[in-house]
C-alpha cells in the first residue's frame, strides 16, 4: 500500500516538475503584459508553443556536428533530473537520497556546459558571444550559490535539499534562524542570474548583441528549440520551487498521507505563482544592467552569503 502511494506521489511530482513550470512562464509573461497595459497571452501559451515546435521540422546548420544535435536532449535531461530532486508539493522526492546540493549545482553546470558547446559548434559570432557571457555569469554566481545552500544546509544539519526543506517545515516561522533572510537574498539574486532574467539578461530582447542566454538558441528550430525552451522553463520552475520550499515551507504534504496532498498541491501552486508574479513585477520595473555591472550584483549575493556564514560562525544555529 505504501509502495503504491509512493509511486503515486512520485507520479504527481514528475507531472508537476515537468509541466507546472510552463504555467509559471505564462504567469510571468501575463504579469509583464498587464503591467504594460496589454492583455497578454493565454497562460498555457508556452505549452501550445512547445507542442507546435515538436511537430515541426528542424534545420541544422551545416557547420554543426553531433554536439549540436545532442545538446538539447542533454540540456533538457540534466535540468529535468535536477527538477526531480527539488521538492514540490511534498518534501519527499523520488531521488531524495541523491539530492545533494553540490550534485544539483554541478548537474545544472553540465546542462550549461552542453549548451555552451553547442553554441560554439554553430560557428556563428552571436552564439559564441552567448557562450562566453553565460560562462562568465555562471562562474561568478556558482560560489554564491554554493555558499547560500551551504548555509541553509548548515542550519538544517544536512547537505540534501529535501531534508533541508523537511527540517525547515517542522519549525514555526518565528523559530527560523535570522540567517534565513540573508540566504534568501543571496539565493534569489543567484537564481535570477542563472535563469537569465532581468536585470542580468532580458529573455524578451530582440537585439542579438545584448543577449546572453537567448543568443545561444538562435540556430535552434523545431524540436531542438522546443527542448531548449522547455529546459529553460524547467530551470525556472525548479529555482522557484527551491526558493518557495526552503524559505516559505507552508502546507507541505507529508509522505504517504493521501489526505494532505490537495493542500500541498494548492499551497505549492499558490506559492510558486506568487513568486512568478513577483518576478514579472521585478522584470517590468527594473532596467537591465550593463554587462560588467553584473559582477556588482553577484558580489552583493556573495556578500549576503558570507554574512550568513559569519553569523552562523559567531552566534551558531
Amino acid at each position, binding site marked *: 500500500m505504501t509502495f503504491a502511494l509512493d509511486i503515486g506521489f512520485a507520479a504527481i511530482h514528475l507531472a508537476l516538475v515537468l509541466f507546472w513550470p510552463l504555467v509559471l512562464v505564462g504567469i510571468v509573461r501575463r504579469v509583464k503584459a498587464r503591467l504594460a497595459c496589454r492583455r497578454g497571452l493565454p497562460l498555457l501559451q508556452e505549452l501550445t508553443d512547445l507542442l507546435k515546435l515538436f511537430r515541426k521540422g528542424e534545420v541544422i546548420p551545416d557547420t554543426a556536428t553531433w554536439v549540436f544535435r545532442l545538446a538539447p536532449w542533454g540540456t533538457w535531461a540534466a535540468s529535468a533530473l535536477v527538477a526531480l530532486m527539488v521538492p514540490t508539493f511534498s518534501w519527499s522526492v523520488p531521488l531524495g537520497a541523491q539530492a545533494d546540493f553540490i550534485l544539483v549545482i554541478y548537474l545544472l553546470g553540465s546542462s550549461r556546459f552542453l549548451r555552451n*558547446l553547442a553554441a560554439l559548434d554553430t560557428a556563428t559570432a552571436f552564439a559564441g558571444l552567448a557562450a562566453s557571457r553565460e560562462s562568465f555569469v555562471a562562474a561568478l554566481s556558482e560560489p554564491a550559490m554554493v555558499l547560500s545552500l551551504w548555509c541553509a544546509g548548515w542550519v538544517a544539519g544536512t547537505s540534501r535539499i529535501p531534508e533541508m526543506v523537511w527540517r525547515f517545515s517542522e519549525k514555526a516561522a518565528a523559530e527560523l534562524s535570522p540567517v534565513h533572510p540573508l540566504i534568501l537574498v543571496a539565493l534569489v539574486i543567484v537564481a535570477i542570474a542563472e535563469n537569465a532574467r532581468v536585470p542580468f539578461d532580458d529573455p524578451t530582447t530582440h537585439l542579438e548583441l545584448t543577449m546572453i542566454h537567448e543568443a545561444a538558441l538562435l540556430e535552434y528550430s523545431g524540436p531542438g528549440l522546443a527542448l531548449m525552451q522547455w529546459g529553460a522553463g524547467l530551470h525556472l520552475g525548479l529555482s522557484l520551487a527551491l526558493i518557495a520550499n526552503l524559505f516559505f515551507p507552508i502546507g507541505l504534504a507529508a509522505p504517504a498521507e493521501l489526505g494532505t496532498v490537495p493542500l500541498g498541491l494548492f499551497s505549492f501552486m499558490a506559492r510558486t505563482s506568487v513568486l512568478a508574479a513577483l518576478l514579472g513585477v521585478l522584470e517590468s520595473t527594473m532596467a537591465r544592467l550593463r554587462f560588467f555591472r553584473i559582477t556588482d550584483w553577484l558580489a552583493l549575493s556573495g556578500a549576503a552569503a558570507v554574512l550568513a556564514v559569519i553569523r552562523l560562525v559567531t552566534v551558531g544555529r
Partner: protein
Amino acid sequence: MLSLLFFLSILLTAASGAAALALQSRPALAHRVGCWGQLAGTLAGVVLAILCLASDAPGHLRFDGPVPGLGFTLRFDALAGFFLLLVFGLGALATTFGLPYGFIGHSSSLGTRDFCLGFFLASMAVVVLADDVFTFFAAWESMSVFAFLLLPGEHEKREVREAAYLFLIASQVGTAFILVAFLVLAHHAGSLEFDAFRRAAPLSLPWRSGIFALALIGFGTKAGMIPFHVWLPKAHPVAPSHVSALMSGVMIKTALYGLIRFAFEFLAPLDAFWGLVVLTLGAVSAVLGALFALLEHDLKRMLAYSSVENVGIILMGLGVAIFFAGSGKGDWAAYALLAALFHTLNHAVFKTLLFLAAGSVLAATREASLEHLGGLARRMPATAVCFLVGAWAISGLPPANGFASEWMTYQALWVLASGSAGTHLLGPIAAACLALVGGLAAACFVRAAGVGFLGLPRTEPARRAEEAPRGMIWPMAALAALCLFAGLAPGLPLAMLAGCLPRQLSAPSLLLAGPLGLPAARSVEPPLYPLAIVATLAALLLGLTFVRRRLGTASAATRVHGPWNCGYPIVAPRAQYSASGFSQPFAYFARKLLSRKKLLDVHARHHYSPYLPESLVLRVHSVSPFDTLVYQPVKRFVIRLSKRVSRLQTGSLRLYLAFLLGTVILLLLIQP
C-alpha cells in the same frame, strides 16, 4: 617475487632506453626497440604495483653500497604501489602513444629521446619506492635531469631553451629545500633510512613545523603550487606531448607523494595548523591556476596551468586531512586523504588523456594555438570525442571521475566546517573557492573544446588535418573509458586507495559504500550513486524520445542548411568567436590582478591622418604579479650576490690553492 618484478621492470625500461641510444644511427629501429622495451617494462611494473597494493605488510629490498651507510633501500607498500601504478600504468599508455607519435614529429633525435624517457620512467618508479635518503635523492635528481633532457624537443627555439633552464633551476631550488628537511630528520634519527625516521621519537613542535615548511616549499615547487609554480606552465608544454602528459600527470604527483610521506609518517604527530596552511595554499593555487588556464591560448600551456589548478584541489583535500589528523579525528582525516588521493588518480588519468589528445592535434596540424584551430571534430572525430570526455571530466561534471573526487573534497570541507571553532569560516570559504574553480574550469574547457574542435577551421592546417593513426587513438580511448569507469563505479578505486592510507588513519569500513557508491563524509548521510543518476537520466531521455516520436509528423524532416546567423548570409571562419574573445570578460574582471596592458600600434600611410591606418596591431601584455613582486627581486638579489662572489674568481691558481689551504685550516680549527 617483488624484487624480481622490480628488476624486470626497471631494467627493461632503462635498458631499452640504452638500446635506443646505441641504435641512434637508425632512428626508426631505435624508436621501435625503445618503445616496445619500455612497454614491456611498464607492464611488468603494473603487475608489481598491483602486488604492492595487494600486500598486507610492506616488503623491503636492500643492497649495500660501496661506502658503509650508503646502501640502496626500497620499500614496497600500498602507498608506493598506488603511485607506482600511476607511473607504470600511464607510462605504458604514453609509450604506446609515443610509438606512432615519434614518427610524426622530429625523427632525428628519436633514440636520445627514448633513452631519456626510459630512464625518466625508471627514476620515477624508484622515487616512490625509495626508503632511504640516498636512494630517494639519487632517483629524484635523475628524474629531474632526465625530465630536463626530455624538454628541449625543439631546442633551436629560444623560449624552449629558456623554459628548460627555468625548469632545472626550479627543480634544484626545490630539491635544496627537501634536502635540508631530510638532513635535519636524518641528524635527529641518526640514520639515513626512512624506517629510522618512522621509529625515532618525535621532535619538538617548532622543529617539526620548520621541517614541514621546508618540505612544503620543496615539494610544492615540484608540484607547481602557487606561488612556486612559474616554471611549470613554461616547461611542461615544450616537451613532446606524451612526455608532457607524464610530467603533468605523473611527475608532479611524486611531489605530492613525498609530501604525504613526510606529513603522515616522518613528522607524526601532525599539527592541525599545518593543514590550514596547506588548505589555503591549495585554494589559492586552484583559483589562480584556473584563471590563468582560462586566459591561455596555447593548448598545452592551458593544460599545464590547469595542472596547477588540480594540484590546488588535491592540496585542499590534503590540507583537510592533515588538519583532522592533527586534531585527532582519524576517520575524517582518512576521508579527506581519500578525496585527495582519488583526485590525484583522476587528475593523472584525465590530464594524460588531454595531453595525448593535444599531441594528436599537434601532430595533425602543427598548430598549438587555439586561435589557429577549429572544426577538428569533423576531421578527427575520435580525437575530438576523447578530448570532450577529458574536458567533461576535468570540469568536474557528473557522472565522470572529476566530479566524484571534487564532491568528496566538498564533503571533507563540509565536515571541516563542523569541526572546531577556528575552521568554521575556512570550510565554507574554501568551498566557495572550489565552486569558483569549477565554474572557471568549465568555462576554460568549453572554450578549449568549442574553439579548438567545433565550429569552422580557422587556418589551412586545421582544414587539412587528418585523424591520428589507430596506435595513437586507442591509448586515448582507454583513458577516456577509465574516466567514465572511475566516475560510475567510484567504489572500486576508493577501495584500492583505502588500502594505501597511512596506518594511523586506517579507514573504517563504513567509509566505503560498495563498488558503485560514493561515500559521504558523515556516515549518517547516504552515499551518492552516480549510476542511479545516470539510470534516471536515461529513463527521462527514453520517455522524451517516446513523446517526441508520438508528436513528430512524417512531413517534418530534418534539413541541413547554412546557419541562419540572424539573417547574415556569410559565415566566415574569421568571424567566429575567438578564444581570446571568449575569455575577454574574465580578463577584464581580473585586470587588476593580471596588470594587463593593451597597446595599439597604428601604422598610418598618410601622415596627415591617423584615421586612415594601413595596419593595426593590438598587443595585449600581461605581467604576472608573482613575477614582479617575488621573482624579479629574488633574481636581482642573486645576480648581485653572484657578482660579489665572482671577485674571488681571479683565475690565479696560487690564490685558489691558498683558499683550499685556508678552508682546511678553518675546518681543523672548528672540529671539536
